[in-house]
């Protein structure tokens, strides 16, 4: 697919959307998509499903809250050009550490270990007051002004999120073509054979997790600016599962799927109130997830590209069933 065909409408979106749609749907989808991309990157290229992505995002978000303007009077104010790289760096380091811990685990065991890390971090943030301000966390976190432009402005935050999403996708597609990215995919296919080529298996696994930490961290920073607060609830089981649901809905076979999944998730989340009871959102998203897993195991992105392929080559219409 030609990127310009998608990018130009997305750039023009603020012209047609009101602030509610732009902020509550478009920006939120992009941010959630970036966080889900960090998971679908790991799942697609390393073959590991991680439940610790909300932790990596949270570490970046908490860093921004702690070192930026907030209304709870905790932390130290640093200029954004220090706090942003610091937040990203801590997310990368935490990703690398989680990779180091989970490096020998695959399948269900990798899920268990990363879930344990995610849940442990959740409880840690609830009980630690000096850094995380317990379960209330930080509120009144304000996005910085860069060159006179406030990132609190809906249009500015939307464009920044869009730019970050595009950059994240470009980084992923460049990274997987690099020698290290190829090694990561080789580890996914046959880890023992990678060692037999003379290549250490630990480095690619740790690097993959660290890179996913960078993506998650970028999403986490945007998220804390978007929400203007962060607390233990931002890193708890809820967000952990949301990220997984978004990645699965979008499909784990192509990185862009994360954003498709995010749009569907956010639309359902925003308008579930109008369709059914607010309390029934989990039922609704559960049914959607079930349908996707049964009807399109490759996710919506895969479903869409199958349709496109079929429209282009009508002669193979009978071959595959939906």
């Amino acid at each position: 697919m030609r990127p310009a065909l998608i990018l130009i409408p997305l750039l023009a979106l603020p012209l047609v959307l009101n602030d509610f749609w732009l902020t509550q749907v478009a920006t939120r989808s992009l941010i959630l998509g970036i966080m889900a991309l960090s998971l679908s990157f790991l799942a697609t290229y390393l073959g590991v499903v991680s439940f610790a992505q909300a932790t990596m995002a949270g570490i970046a978000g908490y860093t921004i809250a702690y070192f930026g303007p907030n209304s709870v009077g905790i932390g130290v104010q640093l200029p954004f050009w220090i706090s942003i790289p610091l937040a990203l760096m801590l997310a990368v380091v935490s990703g690398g550490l989680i990779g180091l811990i989970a490096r020998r685990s695959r399948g269900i065991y990798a899920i268990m270990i990363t879930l344990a890390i995610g849940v442990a971090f959740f409880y840690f943030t609830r009980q630690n007051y000096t850094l995380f301000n317990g379960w209330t966390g930080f509120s009144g976190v304000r996005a910085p002004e860069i060159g006179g432009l406030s990132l609190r402005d809906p249009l500015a935050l939307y464009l920044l999120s869009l730019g970050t999403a595009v950059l994240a996708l470009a980084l992923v597609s460049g990274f997987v073509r690099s020698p290290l990215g190829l090694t990561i995919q080789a580890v996914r296919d046959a880890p023992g054979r990678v060692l037999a080529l003379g290549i250490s298996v630990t480095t690619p696994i740790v690097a993959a997790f660290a890179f996913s930490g960078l993506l998650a961290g970028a999403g986490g920073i945007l998220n804390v600016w978007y929400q203007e607060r962060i607390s233990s609830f931002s890193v708890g089981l809820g967000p952990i599962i949301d990220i997984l649901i978004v990645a699965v809905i979008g499909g784990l076979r192509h990185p862009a799927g994360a954003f498709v999944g995010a749009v569907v998730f956010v639309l359902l989340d925003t308008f579930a109130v109008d369709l059914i009871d607010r309390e029934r959102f989990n039922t609704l998203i559960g049914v959607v997830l079930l349908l996707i897993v049964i009807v399109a195991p490759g996710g919506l992105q895969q479903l869409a590209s199958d349709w496109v392929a079929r429209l282009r080559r009508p002669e193979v219409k009978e071959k595959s069933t939906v």
Partner: protein
Amino acid sequence: MPVNHSHTNANALEVRGIGKRFGGFWAVQDIDLTVRPGERRAILGPNGAGKTSLFNVLTGDTSATTGQITLFGDSVTREPINKRIQRGLRRTYQHAHLFNGLTVRDTLFLAVAGVRGGWRQVLPLRAGDDRLAEAERLAEVAGVADVLDRETSELSHGQRRQLEIGIALAEKPKILLLDEPAAGLSPAERPKLSALLMSLPKDVTVVLIEHDMDIALQTSESVSVLYNGRMLAEGSPDDIMRNEDVHRVYIGGAHGH
């Protein structure tokens, strides 16, 4: 002749008292084996004789329970497989575990990058990287140049075997362990493989596990026969053909006399 190993007079491979136990079962036991530099050695033996288990111990895919392994005079018994690869040891696998999501080009590139090692492995790739040229040369040698950009999952069985050999040839191996490279090949593909084996540089030491007696005896100067995990006989192809024990357990059995 590119002799860059430290002990020029040492044997390419020296194995003393190697044994590998799985639970209560000795897959191989008391194996002594000496292979000179540049030698072509075949290892024969019926199914379950311990040939592949011996290879696994030699390369470090599994650790030896007993015994010592020396490569060109250096003890490697405790070394992990990636270090032995960087010493010039290579092997092919009987059941090809290839990277199904990668192309032939990327697979060969990783093989070259793995042997060279170092920090370049984690640096971004630049145009004109000599490792890419080396990968293309390997594809040419192994006869998979026409499928360079195909994913390995799409290759035929024969092409996968050829790719296996291409991987093993990365960066001038000093000693090649080939585990039944001809297994499952069609009659049309076999001569190609024989030719490839015959065309290997003379200074490369080759140890070959082969069921096909023709290929084994045609390409080797000496033969070791394994039976029930132990060394049954060693000698020239002629000696082995005349050996009573070998006839009884292997040649007789294999040909159904």
